[in-house]
């Protein structure tokens, strides 16, 4: 019994760690989300520490990965084997600004044990361009060096950070560009975008001209973010699926209709990339996609649930056998590109429509607030599972992009269909695997085996990355 409870607790935590970002959601405030998530982290760390650490190998989001790392480093006395390697491997994959913020939090909390210092040292040593970091994340680098008692990467960077007036000029081109950018407009374009923005404003450079000239220095996401002001023609190839979906949903309807071919092509290409080896292997697939008003998310997560649904639409299309996919939106709309978050959530009736086709797989993408009428989706799935499909010809899974702070989990439709949290549509294949555990019939042993396999893969991937 306790094994089942443990497995349930860990899966609940994985769901939370995949979806929750501590930000405001449609139905709960940021404070509620943070409170709920903070409790969950502590509960799982205290009770299932090894499993808690191995969650770092799963596709949990960066916010939660940073929280897990922080919790692990705060309590070194209880640490188990291999935690340090997991932490190092996860930090190596995280965005540097998040890692610097994490180091800052550790500093504030006065966490300065030997393991923490070693992790900071190794992470900083692995940074490809310390001078760029010193310019772009100046206070973060300074704080990390001070906190871990580390020497700067080289003498010039050290002077740049801690004795800025000491040198008349720098040998390193990035540091030199930063110095010159104070008076020389042309040097601005040798700096990273986020730093250059401030200098451009100081020099009074026209935004449009600035964006055009800085373009080569932008990261991929910065380019996507500024493409609205820079004008269309941005390169959408190579964008991750969910980012692309978010970008598409941010465009006005007229533009979406106008650029239909281009946008659909980009979404299809991203979905094929995400599907990878699984493409075309899922057979007949039916999806129920939630585009009710609640999928508009919140001011800080604008249209996120809807973007996940849109991403899943294209991904499932790629995963299904050619021509064997049906996507049903709750609003009854048929054009995925012009989808808008509006109206109630009649999930139950849409699920019935989806089952009419006799699919091999049924995927429901929804925040779980089934309200027209409430609870009908759970009832339909229960009756269908117990009366009409007891042999499980159809595999059903509910993926939920919204963390419900009140229940410490994603909201479920009912016990008869497993619910898993989802952050990016790309993770769908891996999540469907986890959903097998969430059906409550597999115990802790299987879950442990699965996690060990994921950890091994994860660490192996990290090792290769280091060698390369």
């Amino acid at each position, binding site marked *: 019994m306790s094994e089942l409870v443990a497995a349930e607790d860990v899966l609940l935590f994985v769901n939370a760690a995949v979806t929750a970002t501590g930000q405001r959601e449609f139905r709960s*405030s940021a404070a509620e989300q943070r409170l709920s998530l903070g409790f969950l982290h502590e509960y799982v760390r205290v009770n299932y520490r090894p499993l808690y650490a191995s969650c770092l190998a799963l596709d949990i989001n960066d916010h939660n990965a940073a929280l897990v790392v922080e919790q692990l480093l705060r309590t070194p006395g209880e640490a188990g084997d291999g935690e340090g390697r997991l932490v190092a491997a996860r930090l190596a994959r995280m965005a540097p600004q998040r890692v610097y913020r994490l180091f800052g939090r550790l500093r504030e909390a006065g966490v300065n044990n030997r393991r923490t210092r070693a992790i900071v040292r190794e992470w900083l040593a692995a940074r490809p361009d310390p001078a760029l970091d010193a310019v772009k994340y100046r206070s973060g680098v300074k704080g990390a060096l001070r906190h871990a008692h580390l020497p700067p990467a080289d003498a010039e960077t050290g002077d740049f950070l801690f004795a800025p007036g000491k040198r008349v000029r720098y040998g390193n081109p990035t540091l030199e560009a930063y110095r010159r950018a104070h008076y020389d407009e042309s040097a601005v374009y040798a700096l990273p975008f986020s730093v250059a923005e401030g200098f451009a404003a100081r020099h009074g450079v026209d935004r449009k001209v600035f964006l055009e000239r800085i373009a080569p220095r932008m990261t991929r996401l910065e380019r996507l973010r500024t493409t609205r002001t820079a004008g269309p023609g941005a390169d959408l190839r190579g964008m991750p699926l969910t980012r692309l979906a978010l970008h598409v949903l941010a465009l006005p309807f007229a533009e979406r209709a106008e650029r239909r071919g281009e946008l659909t092509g980009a979404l299809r290409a991203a979905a094929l990339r995400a599907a990878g080896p699984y493409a075309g292997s899922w057979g007949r697939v039916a999806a129920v996609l939630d585009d009710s*008003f609640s999928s508009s998310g919140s001011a800080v997560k604008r249209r996120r649930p809807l973007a996940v649904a849109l991403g899943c639409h294209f991904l499932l299309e790629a995963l299904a056998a050619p021509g064997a996919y049906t996507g049903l939106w709750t609003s009854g709309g048929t054009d995925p590109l012009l989808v808008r978050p509006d109206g109630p959530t009649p999930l*139950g009736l849409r699920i*019935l429509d989806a*089952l009419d086709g006799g699919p091999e797989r049924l995927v429901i993408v929804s925040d779980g607030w089934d*309200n027209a*009428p409430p*609870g009908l989706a759970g009832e339909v799935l229960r009756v269908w599972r117990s009366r*009409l499909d007891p042999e499980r010809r159809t595999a059903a899974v509910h993926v939920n992009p919204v963390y419900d702070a009140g229940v410490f989990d994603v909201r479920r439709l009912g016990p008869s269909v497993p619910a898993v949290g989802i952050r990016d549509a790309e993770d769908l294949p891996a999540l469907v695997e986890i959903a097998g555990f969430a059906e409550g019939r597999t115990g802790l042993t299987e879950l442990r085996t699965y996690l060990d396999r994921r950890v091994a893969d994860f660490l192996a991937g990290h090792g290769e990355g280091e060698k390369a």
Partner: protein
Amino acid sequence: MTRIDLTGLGVRPAQVWGGVRLVPLVRAEPVGGLRLHREAYGSGVRRDGGGRDGGYVSHLSAPSSVDAGDGTVYTSYIPHGFVADWSGTDREEAVYGTRLGDGPPATVPLRAPHHRFAKRRRGERRLRFLPLHLALDGYLSLHFGGPPVLWEEWSRDALRRGLSPRAEAAYAGVEVPGLAEALRIFELHPGQCGVLVYAADALAGAFVVPHPEDYRLLHPTLVEDLYGEQVHQYAHYGAPVPDFTARIRDGAGGIRNLADLRAAAREQERRWAEAHDGLMARDLLETPYAFERVYRMGSFALYRFLPPFLRDGREQHIGELITDHKGRTAYLKTFRLSDAQVRRGYLLRRLASCDWHVGRAAEALGTAPEELVRRIRAAGFGELLDAHGLAQARRKRQEG
């Protein structure tokens, strides 16, 4: 016409948030020939008024004062007004404070006593009125004139000035706990033209408009409307209400294929609609009201109505409505009276029916005159009584 007729409006499943339950009403097709718009008054000081995380922006205006002409000044706080438009042009654009013409927007001209809150500009096929003011005005002016005969128990002031000044308290929607949040996360149904608001499962108010587009625009104004004292208390002290979740009976052989399952799912929707109309909204729909026509606009008529003020424990609502020529409701807005307000209405009714004669009224009520006097005092009408006259009357009764 004695009842509210909600023909053409269908009930859809309720959405619950905390102690607030919102029941959407949808129309298969909008009422032709009448549109309702919102009108913002005043300078429009913007303020965030929507609960924890901010939601709606309410438009506050400075209290506006209007000279009624005979030296009386009417001062009111007006969050927003409505414009009923029966010109039939059915323009699609949202009208928001743009239909006032060139007049200063903060004022509402008042002339004829009954048309005070509904004003039509000359030659226009549009009527402007303030939501719920008509209804509240109707309730406040109930037997406003006071006693017609100076029986000894009543003071001279009672005869001279009636019930003036007469006041009742109400709460703005933002002060009703949980209402703003519930309205913010409410998912509008396609074709939705109205909503019934329940606080702790007591009907707090009904709101119906002629066209779904109007409803979409006016939905946020629900948070600026007036709600009775009782609604505020219920929302404040009431526990979260449960969802009426669907249940499909699948006993032996009940459901054999998907078609059966679909039929059972449809059945759930129908049963909810029946249960709602018969159980939750019964008091609103089945009470006979006293309707008073305030305005006639083409084939539509604007009414206000008062409940029978019966003390049988049922909900009592006041409100205003616009009906088409067949008596079907195009616009409806109600206000739930608290028990104390119902008691006051009841008392005034009974007194008036006995020409304000305390002895006869007490007899009609089956109680002693002393008890009736106590009730008059408890209802807040003590100032109408004359202490000397009361003492005299009591002495007479004792002697007699």
